[in-house]
């Protein structure tokens, strides 16, 4: 496929802007660039077709089943896209007077309130632009709390289970903490004895995903949060897996002090090929005074701006990824009181349904009733016939199914993590299971077929070693 720069033809242009209708201002030549940027010169029709071709080489949720564990690739309702395109939202300058942005403030204020109710928190900020950004913001709440108590000097450690997402330890370090990793027990939960041994007067807090990255709800959760609190630390809930429990269990009731949620997972806003996301952060009232500025609060005439008394400052310009919030707001309005728990319970049902159908062939890493996702261990198959998780993932591409998350969590070496979500029908799940069982058979009978997969994609496996050893990160003009 050609690059934009390869279909460019000198002198081609689109008639987009009128000529300047005032005297052209002439800058001193020393202030001007010496050469024009080599941007492509393309007609509108060719530009459109270029991207139509690229879209054909892109697999979205609209293209097919997307059981990508820990990413919650649920269907993205079209009505939310339409509402996020309303000019009453897109045409608003972020620094307009407050009285002229009452609609935006209402969307944000009511979204905050609904997210507080779902997570069991008291206050919420929508400023963080993604999940990892939310983690960082939540950890800054914890940091400010300890600083106010004069304990930041010694409370330097954040405890993170070894099964955690990579963002957790990375966020902790960005927030100025060091990381203590605790192992999992035989059931895939937090090892309570190891946790007790890890806490102390240097504990700043704990970051936990529950259900965890194995798709298991930790039954010891109340004990876990108590151990941390007894040691003087705070508990941070990574909401990556909230889609399993919303409307059925709340982090606030599990003993967590602050949370982030991923609007682009749980609340159905599209992933856009990697973003924009949105990572609202909620907290119990004793942490609210540290929230980023400005806050959106309820006022006599709707909603308005306010400043937290002891705000951490800002983590992003303005108020966050507002149009993503609009989509999530519309989604929550649609689902409402009944639809929110219905979504999560069906996500859990679909995952268990698939797991049971696959369990006769594949090894389930921790074979217990799962929540919204489960992890298969391809280790035994690798030992037997030399087929690994990557091979199975790549073979799935030939069947038009997006592969599950591979090689995560790290504690299962040949992991395939499947998260079907609630928006898939029984027929889709049945077919995916049939395909996976067929691939299992192929692995035993004809492993070569899997090693060479995919066979039906526009490219075969890319040479990633070459890409990293000899980085070519932009087009080389002739």
């Amino acid at each position, binding site marked *: 496929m050609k690059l934009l720069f390869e279909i460019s033809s000198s002198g081609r242009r689109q008639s987009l802007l009128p000529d300047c209708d005032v005297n052209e201002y002439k800058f001193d030549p020393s202030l001007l660039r010496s050469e024009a940027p080599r941007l492509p010169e393309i007609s509108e029709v060719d530009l459109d077709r270029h991207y139509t071709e690229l879209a054909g080489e892109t697999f979205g949720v609209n293209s097919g089943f997307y059981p990508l564990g820990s990413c919650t690739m649920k269907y993205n309702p079209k009505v939310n896209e339409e509402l996020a395109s309303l000019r009453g939202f897109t045409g608003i300058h972020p620094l307009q007077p407050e009285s002229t942005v009452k609609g935006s403030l209402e969307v944000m204020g009511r979204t905050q309130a*609904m997210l507080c109710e779902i997570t069991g928190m008291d206050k919420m900020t929508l400023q963080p632009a993604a999940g990892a950004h939310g983690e960082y913001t939540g950890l800054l709440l914890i940091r400010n709390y300890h600083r106010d108590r004069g304990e930041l000097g010694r409370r330097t450690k954040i405890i993170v289970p070894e099964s955690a997402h990579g963002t957790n330890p990375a966020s902790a370090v960005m927030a100025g903490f060091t990381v203590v990793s605790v192992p999992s027990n035989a059931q895939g939960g937090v090892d309570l004895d190891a946790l007790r041994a890890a806490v102390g007067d240097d504990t700043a807090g704990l970051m936990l995903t529950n259900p965890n990255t194995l798709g298991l709800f930790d039954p010891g959760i109340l004990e876990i949060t108590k151990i941390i609190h007894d040691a003087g630390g705070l508990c941070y809930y990574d909401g990556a897996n909230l889609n399993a429990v919303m409307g059925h269990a709340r982090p606030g009731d599990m003993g967590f002090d602050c949370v982030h949620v991923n609007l682009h997972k749980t609340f159905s806003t599209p992933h856009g090929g990697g973003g924009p996301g949105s990572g609202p952060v909620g907290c119990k009232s004793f942490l609210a005074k540290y929230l980023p500025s400005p806050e959106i609060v309820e006022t006599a005439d709707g909603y308005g701006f306010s400043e937290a008394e002891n705000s951490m400052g800002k983590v992003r310009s303005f108020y966050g990824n507002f149009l993503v919030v609009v989509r999530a707001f519309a989604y929550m309005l649609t689902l409402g009181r009944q639809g929110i728990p219905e979504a999560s319970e069906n996500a859990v*049902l679909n995952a268990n349904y698939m797991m049971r159908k696959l369990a006769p062939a594949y090894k389930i890493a921790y074979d217990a009733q799962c929540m919204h996702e489960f992890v298969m261990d391809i280790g035994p198959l690798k030992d037997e016939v030399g087929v690994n998780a990557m091979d199975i993932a790549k073979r799935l591409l030939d069947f038009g199914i997006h592969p599950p998350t591979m090689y995560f969590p790290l504690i299962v070496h040949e992991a395939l993590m499947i998260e079907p979500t609630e928006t898939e029908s029984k027929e889709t799940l049945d077919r995916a299971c049939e395909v996976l069982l067929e691939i299992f058979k192929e692995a035993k009978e004809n492993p070569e077929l899997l090693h060479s997969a995919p066979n039906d994609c526009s490219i075969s496996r890319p040479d990633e070693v070459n*890409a990293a050893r000899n980085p070519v990160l932009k087009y080389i003009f002739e």
Partner: protein
Amino acid sequence: MGSYIPNTVDERLEMLKSLGLSSFDELYSVVPEAARVRELDLPDGLSEMETVAAVSRIAAKNKVFDSIFRGAGAYCHYIPSVVKAITSKEDFVTAYTPYQAEISQGVLQSIFEYQTQICELTGMDVSNASVYDGATAAAEAVLMNVDGRRKKKVVVSGAADPQVIKVIRTYCDSRNVEVTVVPVKDCATDTEALRSAVDRETATVYIQSPNYYGVLEDAEDIISASHEAGAKVAMGVNPISLGIMKTPGEYGADIACGEGQPLGLPLSFGGPYIGFMAAKKDMMRKLPGRIVGQTVDADGRRCFVLTLQAREQHIRREKASSNICSNEALCAMTVSVYLAAMGPEGLKKAAVCSASHAHYLAKELSKLDGFELVSGREFFDEFLMTCPVDPDKLNEKLAENGILGGLPIDGNILWCATEMNGKADIDRLVALVADIVKEAE
């Protein structure tokens, strides 16, 4: 109530039964009772028609201005129709991060094209695939060269966008990196003060040009002074200006960053926006976030993959220099389509028209008594001007006429004009301002 679950109630029961369960409640039997919630205090769900009506009603509570003379970090530029059409393609909208290269060549190639365009625009060698916004781009940029041992301080121009400074402070404070903000003199960085603030422990100096007040900084001076002291320089830029203005690369900056919103993204009450980041080659491995590289597949065909991933959090975990995972991929594609639609000529026109309109506006306004440029320094498409009446009162009157006036700053007004504000638009504004001032006398 609304729902996006395809399975009927009967199908769900059948599936439950196949698991040996009789109710959904049993799926949550592992959750301790104290952590269970039986009913949420949320409104009843809605049909799609009701949701559209409810949300549209709320959108109507916002005031959309026909004419916008305000920038200060968010800019109203023309967005070609083809941009929205292309970036609304469902495959792009609903795809995940392109970790599976075989079925993600579309997204990967588009990011590679974006990286190339950002390098062209900024005069840099390498670009990442985007970060959240201009402010976080600046914060990530100043931290790139901090090593915690020899380099543990950053110096920031006080003439940068105050929001950017705030975010830099947040990011640096939590890493125990000292931030020195250089005072402002005549709407620009006080170069002498900057010189004395930079020392051997300074990792990075951050300047913005055009700066918050619209003024073009003495970038050459600042950069050479910083380099003499052994510090790297990150330069924030308005990308539209780069259609004509000297690039950070030409000035000798080590990192270029900024808010990409002017390149095809609507104002949208502040987001989603996009932070772009590009750097000289020697800083390549210090860039945060995703980067796409070119390689070949098993059959020798050119293809694209996410590369240099060992820098990132999912591999390096607590040793990663940044925690960024999700970025603003679809906004990066928007920028790329915008730049391709505009081409070098179109972008130049947007830059020239914006600057020319702004200078015309400044000239016309300064014909009125009490309106004077606060600084005589060269500006791009924004300028700070005195105001003989209360700026808020002035703006209220303008708002009644569908105009969003400039941003009030300490009794002055920061005006902005782009290619969207034609001569007639400006003349009408100036006439209204003259009337309002006269009325106030």
